């Protein structure tokens, strides 16, 4: 492309011109922080009647009854936190294993294919995970995981009462969904570990596993932790796939195999049918609680990932 300047131009003496381009682009970019602030403010304003009426008791209330206008968020909050942590426990070993495999040097071809496969897993829409979980994963998990476990350990309360739609099955589909986040970020963090560390360990006679377990993983620890929390944020906010398999039950589940509810699922199911003042306001307050939880989790994760990136580059 020709970017020639007219040769006849007289170059003016140097002087500091105000950078108008900077002002304009900065103003456009400011839309992003503005949107974040407006989301929180507008949701707070809409939730205000419920915030005012139920106060802090909203977070600890167990009852959810639109008829008597008695709303408590505890069962949904518990469901959100429980499904997310269970999903994390299921996905973490697999995600780190994928990251270790993908970060190994050599055999670029096969690693590229596996990496692409895992990243495509991240691209699949959550509603497709949902329909697959509803018709394939949940019935399979009921027959081959829940029933055998509860037959053997059913005397333990929280492993009894297997059901197709359950907190456990929601966690299972969530685990599959957060796997790409976990493994992609962990892979990048492990790759950022200076080559010298690996080579030193090998030169000292360490085996592949000793190098990985005692040298690489400790060096990448904080970054992997950050990836874990980022994945936790994904899991906390996921809506559709969870709504389709969790069983939609407004109660503290007696067992991980029993139906439960999550914050996002309650909103998805009830918001369009909510009438009056307090029911919609209570639902929006659930959304506000969800946003606050994910906001804190995400900011902590981002700070962790950034600080490790710095640590690792200093170590090099």
């Amino acid at each position, binding site marked *: 492309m020709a970017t020639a300047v007219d040769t006849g131009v007289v170059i003016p003496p140097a002087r500091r011109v105000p950078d108008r381009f900077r002002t304009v682009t*900065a103003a456009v970019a400011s839309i992003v922080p503005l949107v974040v602030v407006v989301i929180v403010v507008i949701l707070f304003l809409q939730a205000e009647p419920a915030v005012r009426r139920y106060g802090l008791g909203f977070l600890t209330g167990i009852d959810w009854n639109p008829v008597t206008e008695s709303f408590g968020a505890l069962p949904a909050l518990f469901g959100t936190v429980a499904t997310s942590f269970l999903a994390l426990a299921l996905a973490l070993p697999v995600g780190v294993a994928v990251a270790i495999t993908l970060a190994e040097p050599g055999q670029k071809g096969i690693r590229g294919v596996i990496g692409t496969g895992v990243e495509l897993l991240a691209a699949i829409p959550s509603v497709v995970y949902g329909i697959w979980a509803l018709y394939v994963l949940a019935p399979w998990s009921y027959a081959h995981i829940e029933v055998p476990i509860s037959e053997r350990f059913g005397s333990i309360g929280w492993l009894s009462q297997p059901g197709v739609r359950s907190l456990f099955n929601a966690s299972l589909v969530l685990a599959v969904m957060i796997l790409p986040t976990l493994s992609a970020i962990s892979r990048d963090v492990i790759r950022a570990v200076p080559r010298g560390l690996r080579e030193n360990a090998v030169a000292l006679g360490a085996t592949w596993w000793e190098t990985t377990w005692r040298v690489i993983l400790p060096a990448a620890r904080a970054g992997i932790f950050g990836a874990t929390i980022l994945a936790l944020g994904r899991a906390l906010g996921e809506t559709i796939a969870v709504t389709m398999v969790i069983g939609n039950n407004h109660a503290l589940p007696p067992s991980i195999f029993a139906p439960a509810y999550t914050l996002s699922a309650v909103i998805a199911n009830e918001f369009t049918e909510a009438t009056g003042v307090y029911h919609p306001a209570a639902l929006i307050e659930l959304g506000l609680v969800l946003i606050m939880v994910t906001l804190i989790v995400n900011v902590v994760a981002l700070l962790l990932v950034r600080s490790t990136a710095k640590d690792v580059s200093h170590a090099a």
Partner: protein
Amino acid sequence: MNRNARRGYASTGWLVVMYGLTVLALIPLGLILWFTVSRGLPPALHVEFFTNSFRPVGVPGAGVVHAIVGTGILVGLASVMAIPVGILGGVYLAEYNVARWASWVRLASDVLVGTPSIAIGLFAYALVVAPTHHFSGYSGAVALAVLMLPIVIRTTEGAVALIPSGLRESGLALGLPRWRVSLQLILPAAVPGVITGALLAVARASGETAPLLFTAFGNQHLVFDPNSQLQALPLTVYQYALQPYRSLQDQAWGAALVLVVIVLGINLASRWVLRRQIALAGQL
């Protein structure tokens, strides 16, 4: 068995475990693709599936053209809102990356990426649906635009940052004003990367259900007016999959197949474009 041999075996054992877990991670991808194709292909093989809209259960010839058109309108409108803003914002982040405000914008877009999509739906409801008193395609497009914005910004920033600073310095040395350097020199060189970001954002927006539940809401008829309720492919999958009728469930699988083909197709295309960007930046 001596100690070193044991260490060697342990290492090999763990290596096998790691590769085994990696294979395990790929199984869900295979299963999802297999079931979507095997259950979605039979309903999607009929021409009516792409020419007709909703028919009551029992009436043959039902299709999802209303959902395909709706998704097109929603994502198109959202792109018009999000992509120009995202590109300019991304140029700002890359060109003035040490500015203090830039780090706030960066933090805000990372936060926005992590914001639950259902909450963005609530936001669009409060911003557009509540004041206008009706569900509309416009409100759905606003929600999708908020989802797309941070993706476009961060990928544009990445693409512009890839361009060697020599190009920028040559432009400035020739006396070009800053805006011409950024928009006519740097940005054209970064176009493939910017397209990648836009494509990824479009793919993400096409697959989102939660923000549309109480904004676009869904519609059984084929409509082209964004001021009315609009159907979308992910909404179709969600609504039909939960129905007790086999014919609707089959249509849900068919719509899921169409959705997966669109989303994965866009993703693979964006990878190809990105590879060209990296090759191009290497030449500069």
